[in-house]
């Protein structure tokens, strides 16, 4: 029973009246009654959802479904945009000639993101619309209210309601079937968080900044000792590299000198000039075989097959691979040197041969694809390309010289080159 109570200055303000009901049916009837009388600011509490209760209280239906729909549509669009931009525009994946963006292959991700954002909207929405988390509410001050999550039904009328009156509202609630009712107030004393807790939290937060700061310092500082290497991947492998220490041998070198009396394979075969492109150690200046026009034609065909993709038909370094790499702005592509510029122009033929054999910089070795004689043939053709590019009129044979001069003198100016 409600005790008649007068508002003294020392008692905290009343928040409302809490009335207890014995079941969902009476609760719903009482909520209907309150509304009919004209009350607007009241709330019903139940241990499980009572269907129809919210409607008789005259409240607006939640907009949560629309929020979830918006979340789903957002997920759908985000997924489509993400897949289209990343896989078709920014980093195109060419897979078996299939289109870069086609709906069927992109459905699974789109569907999952639709569901994910819809579900996040549903959960986030219910939290926002229910004002959760809200760890404190004045109604928690009523000891009786703790039964509301077990088996008891309550109506709480706010003191803010214009019709609210401590006695009249209590009487009305009783007449609507309340088993009991009580006033509930703002708490008399507000329990404050002990000052130690925020201070400790601030200290912990400050200390938590230290590890990232330390990492940043280590990352950017100059040090003479090697970096910490926490993730090894395969950076340190148990193998010997040139110029390393080895405890296996007396001289502690891992590179072994030639065993006394050993004869090199080259020495046995004897074709150092042919196979290595060397004459007495420095790169050879001459060809190891007689130069013929068949060899020149052979070299041209081999050059067209193996070299033009990067170096271009005339050796300017503008082959299709090179062009494509520039179109796509491949960050790692290094344009091959033009064969008509220094330093390639000044290189002896032996060095060109060695470059084809061993590769250089990003150019791989062609030792396994191109046989020895063909490599020399390519070198010969490269020499011809270089010579033709840097030729003067004096290099042209007699009859052709006349022909060229006649072209020069004519107005057409278009070279009518005949092989």
């Amino acid at each position, binding site marked *: 029973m409600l005790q008649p109570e007068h508002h003294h200055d020392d008692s905290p303000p009343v928040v409302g009246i809490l009335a207890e009901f014995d079941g969902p049916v009476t609760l719903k009837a009482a909520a209907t009654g309150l509304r009919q009388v004209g009350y607007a600011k009241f709330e019903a*509490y139940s241990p499980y959802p009572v269907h129809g209760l919210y409607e008789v209280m005259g409240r607006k239906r939640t907009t949560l479904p629309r929020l979830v729909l918006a979340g789903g549509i957002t997920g759908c669009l985000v997924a489509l945009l993400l897949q289209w931009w990343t896989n078709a525009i920014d980093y195109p994946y060419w897979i078996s000639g299939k289109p870069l963006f086609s709906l069927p292959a992109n459905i699974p991700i789109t569907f999952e993101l639709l*569901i994910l954002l819809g579900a996040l909207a549903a*959960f986030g929405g219910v939290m926002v619309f229910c004002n959760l988390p809200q760890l404190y509410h004045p109604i928690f001050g009523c000891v009786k209210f703790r039964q509301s*999550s077990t088996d008891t039904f309550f109506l709480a009328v706010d003191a803010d309601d214009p019709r609210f009156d401590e006695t009249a509202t209590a009487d009305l609630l009783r007449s609507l079937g309340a088993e009991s009712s009580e006033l509930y107030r703002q708490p008399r004393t507000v329990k404050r968080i002990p000052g130690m807790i925020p201070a400790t939290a601030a200290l912990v937060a400050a200390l938590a900044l230290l590890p990232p700061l330390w990492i940043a310092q280590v990352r950017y500082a100059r040090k003479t000792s090697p970096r910490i290497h926490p993730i090894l991947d395969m950076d340190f492998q148990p193998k010997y590299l040139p110029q390393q220490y080895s405890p296996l041998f007396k001289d502690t070198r891992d590179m072994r000198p030639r065993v006394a009396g050993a004869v090199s394979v080259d020495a046995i075969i004897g074709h150092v000039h042919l196979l290595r492109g060397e004459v007495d150690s420095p790169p050879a200046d001459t060809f190891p075989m007689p130069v013929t026009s068949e060899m020149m034609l052979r070299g041209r065909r081999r050059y067209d097959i193996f070299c033009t993709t990067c170096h271009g038909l005339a050796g300017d370094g503008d082959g299709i691979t090179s062009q494509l790499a520039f179109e796509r702005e491949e960050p790692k592509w290094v344009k091959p040197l033009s064969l008509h510029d220094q330093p390639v122009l000044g290189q002896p033929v032996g060095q060109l041969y060695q470059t084809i054999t061993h590769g250089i910089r990003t150019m791989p070795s062609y030792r396994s694809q191109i046989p020895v004689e063909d490599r020399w043939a390519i070198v010969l053709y490269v020499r011809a390309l270089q010579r033709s590019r840097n030729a003067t009129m004096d290099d042209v044979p007699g009859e052709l010289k006349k022909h060229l001069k006649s072209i020069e003198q004519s107005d057409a100016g278009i070279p009518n080159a005949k092989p």
Partner: protein
Amino acid sequence: MSILPLDDNMTQEPTRRARLVVGPADAASITETVCAITERPRPPAAWYAAFAMSAAATGMLFAAIGYLIATGVGVLGNNSPVFWAWPIVNFVFWIGIGHAGTLISAILFLFRQRWRTGINRFAEAMTVFAVACAGIFPAVHVGRVWVVYWLAPYPNQMGVWPNFRSPLLWDVVAISTYGTVSVLFWYLGMIPDLATLRDRAISWWRRIVYGLFALGWRGSAAQWHRFEWAYLLLAALATPLVLSVHSVVSFDFAVSQLPGWHSTIFPPYFVAGAIFSGCAMVVTLAVPARSLFGLKSLITMRHLDNMNRLILGTSLLVAYAYLIELFMAWYGGNQYEAFAQLNRALGPYAWAYWLMVACNVLAPQLFWFPKCRTTPWLMWVIAVLVNVGMWLERFVIIVASLGRDFLPSSWGMFRPTAVDVMMLAGSFGLFCTLFLLFCRYLPMVAMAEVKGVVPPHLGSNGVQ
């Protein structure tokens, strides 16, 4: 409506609605039954024994993972030609287990199957823990775990994006969505029950901890209105999600060109198998849990009977899929496909195939008999057999197909290492540890939902 006996809800008369809660139950007694499990000073001795064992197994799992990461994937049995071996078998197995939880909590909710209220909470918990176990395996077997974030689409200095048309990336997105949505669904449904635990709390720390997780839930009409909408919408989202997840997992196989994998039946076949294995896991967990924690009035024999009928039904679906695979191998006329199927049944892994058939097709047939559907120990044994059978199914699909591919010169056998076995056993340990902690500290039955379905003359003047 005629009065039914209080303690029996096994009636099959179509004119009478069977009780969902047996015994003299009302809102207060339901609350007491469920909350008492977490409020009693000590759990039963069996809980301690089970917890000690599963915690030890969990320790073993993490030790094995630590060893794996420190040493390299070579410690697993995966090797040419069976590169997808034990870890992927475990992954698909655990993901499948989770599916029954979503079936019960979301699909049966949409179909208004009110009996789900007794078992949905712990079936959902099972889903969350199974997804956690599943997620471990693909993550640790990629080799360099520390760069596993490369799977995520983020702007990076390599200038590369993940390939969104790869089934493996679909898998990553589907599993992480499934895990997230399952946790949200589970937690949202639990908030009112956490509030009950908070309101009943006597000790300071229980009030604080449950109070924090209950987020200040008050059970007002406005909150219930939004809660019910959110729950319904999440159920509506989770239903197609759960069907998509195992479909996407099956794409990992079906989109490849390996005989025995490249098959259009895979998505429905995998979904049916997943629900089949998940229902079996529900029975495996429910039978001991309901007797250990005194929940027989809420998780009734009728619940178990229903689960066993689901197991029987999905077992028939799975059996149909096995038959269709054989039929298509013959009817399709592709010699590699025919060989792949024959190799499963008659090849080096025939023992696994026939054990799988015995566990998945033959054993559940016992559920045609009502006696078998209502005898706890018997249904438990059958459910465990189904779990074994479903693990073997994934083993047969993955290992037997990879071990015998197109070129006989590259054939090989898979042999698990000790680390493989430890990781499988350890994942069961992790699953059981999480489940035991859940039983002890969280409301095992969705109290608020069950209170809404107690018979009208027993509830406090309520109508349904």
